[in-house]
């Protein structure tokens, strides 16, 4: 079984970020970076699948500059067998990333792609779906449980009305949700072992064709201070006075 886990380097999801003064983007000075938490869950899932079936081959892939090596090394330490850095400092939007991954998969037969449902920086929730469409592969999004069998993936996904279980023929694309697993601590011997695992650098097979253009970033308006009320009556009067409540 061959698994591909695409990962994205994102600004520390717990950090407070500020727009640049000219609104052209986010101020990244002094920020820490991490694997997108959803992708980290995907890597963890692939590592667990490999622990159950050691013949599994797990490849992590990311598009970006040399700084992404840190995250790709982390994926190796978590259990991936090899990492691939598609070297590019260009900007890639969701369809472009899906194009590049599709091109990789055409040349590198893979049974299943497991990836985060979205990245915490742009919150697009698009690449997995686009990739499946481009390849003509079945997809299961927001997975909370994955079971791989020969030629088949059984995926439990969360929907608004409850859990849904899908069976998909392989190859397939699966995007994962928070409840799938909780990544374990990365033991130090695993980190040292990762030093001898391959991290291959390749040139992109496609070039990004941006179909969206970011025109500006600004902070949300700062919240007005609240007002403390003494009783329910006072609260109702206040709400009516502001026209939030009728009657």
């Amino acid at each position, binding site marked *: 079984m061959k698994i591909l886990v695409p990962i994205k380097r994102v600004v520390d999801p717990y950090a*407070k970020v500020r727009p640049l003064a000219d609104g052209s983007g986010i101020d990244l000075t002094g920020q820490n970076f991490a694997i997108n938490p959803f992708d980290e869950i995907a890597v963890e899932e692939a590592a667990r699948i490999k622990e159950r079936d050691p013949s599994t081959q797990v490849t992590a892939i990311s598009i970006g500059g040399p700084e992404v090596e*840190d995250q790709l*090394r982390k994926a190796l330490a978590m259990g991936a067998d090899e990492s691939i850095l598609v070297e590019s400092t260009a900007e890639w939007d969701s369809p472009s990333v899906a194009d590049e991954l599709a091109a990789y998969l055409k040349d590198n037969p893979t049974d299943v792609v497991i990836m985060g449902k979205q990245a915490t920086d742009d919150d697009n929730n698009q690449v997995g779906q686009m990739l499946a469409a481009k390849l003509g592969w079945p997809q299961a999004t927001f997975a909370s449980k994955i079971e791989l069998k020969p030629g088949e993936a059984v995926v439990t996904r969360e929907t608004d009305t409850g859990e849904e279980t899908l069976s998909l023929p392989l190859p397939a694309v699966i995007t994962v949700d928070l409840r799938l697993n909780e990544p374990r*601590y*990365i*033991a*130090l011997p695993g*980190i*040292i072992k*990762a030093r001898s695992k391959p991290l291959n650098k390749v040139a992109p097979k496609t070039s990004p064709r941006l179909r969206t253009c970011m025109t500006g970033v600004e902070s949300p308006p700062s919240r007005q201070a609240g007002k403390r009320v003494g009783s329910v009556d006072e609260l109702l009067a206040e709400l009516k006075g502001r026209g939030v409540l009728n009657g």
Partner: protein
Amino acid sequence: MSTQTVSPPGASFFSATPARAFAPEDFAGDEKLMIDTAEQFSRKEILPVAERLDHQEDGLMPSLVKQAGDLGFCGVDTSDKYGGLGLGKNVAARILEFLSLNGSFSVTFGVTSGISQVGLALFGSEDQKLKYLPALTSGQQIGAYALSEPNSGSDALSAQTKAIRQGNKWILNGTKMWISNAKWAEQFLVMAKIDGEKFSAFLVERDFPGVSIAREEHKMGLKGSSTARLVLENAEVPVENLLYLEGLGHHVAFNALNIGRFKLSSMSIGPAREALGVAATYALDRKQFGQSISDFGLIQKKFALGAALFYAAESMIYRTGAMIDDAFEQYAGTIDGNRKAAEEYALECSACKIFSTEAESWIVDEMLQVYGGYGFTEEFPIARIYRDARVSRIYEGTNEINRLFLSDRLRRKAKDGSASLTAAGDSFISELAGKAIGQVGADQASIGAASDLVLLAYAEQSARLRSARFGGIHEALYTAFIGYANAKAAESYQLVTGESVTLPAISKPDYAEIAKAVYSKRGPAV
């Protein structure tokens, strides 16, 4: 990670400025991953059970040590031949810093992964190392280090515990006081005098006949750690458990302490890091006079100066660690080589120990002040952090003993030609140190003040070399630090020489900017 070039020799910072020094920012990508794992482990497994640890809940501490062992933490800088990871002491110390956010865990872990192993690793025979180290590096067993006695603390060589040879056994009698981990330890590194004369080191198992542990001491802090007497009553120790040579136990004991002091420096800034973080969160929440107390200038100054002291401590600790790693790479392998490597930067280790533990004290005290009356209650973690920090200045050589050692060491190195007393003069502090060093009197006040000048010069130079490389908030931290350090240096200079001295002009430190960085990081500004 060691640098390519060989590090400058011990104490050379006094007379020369290196072109570059290792900074915490220089840890490699995957070393950062290890450090991250340590921080996560602290925050998720240790800090949430701090109170239960303080109540000495049965089995809790040993199970945390075991968990740490499973993750590979218990033998980071011990050779992989003995189950360790075979990495450097510098990255081991940085990992230790992040495993030290809680003091009780810190001392327990610090002893079993540190001074209980290092004597054995440096001076043990192959058989001894193979027999005793793997249980410690894997976290299966806990170790302890037993030097102090009821009547022999700072004056460690006056130990009264005695060993006499009887057939194929050593018979040990005496009491070892203040033994960290006593309750849990399976192995003890014990110093005793053969025939009451030859100071020597022994490997003592808990189950040897005649070995017992007295009741726990009632301590002011570190309540979750174990501290008790080790009582040896005709304790029977196999002959082969003499560590190193008869009468050379001081090499074992004191070199373990050199490295121990370096590591204690990391263990001291760990809690300081946590104090800055929890107090920042509190300050941002607490309102008085209709505004957040975090906006008050005097509160900002506490965070700024605390972060600046932290910055200087951190700069000197990891600069020292990188040099120690180089020394081990260069010399280690034979017992003599190991000894040389552990001794080369003994002066720097003492400087780090004194400076870091005093920075820690300052920080936990002022962070408690940020809480006002709430800081004085058990409702918030700061009271525990404050109590736990107090002992840092007492153990691994009191700061007084370390001050005496530091000046003595510099004088000896100058005498044997391995160091120069002509100061680099690369800062106001260095200039003062250079002028004072020839005038140090025989009185301890003067010797202690001279040591302060030397260690402040090292701290200043380390912080300067780092801030010049990284700029921005680093520069602000450096400026805040020298405002404080120059004044301390001037005071020390006056104590040594009796001469007055004028402080140089410096730009006004931007306390608000640094405080903001501390608030947003919920910890040290960088």
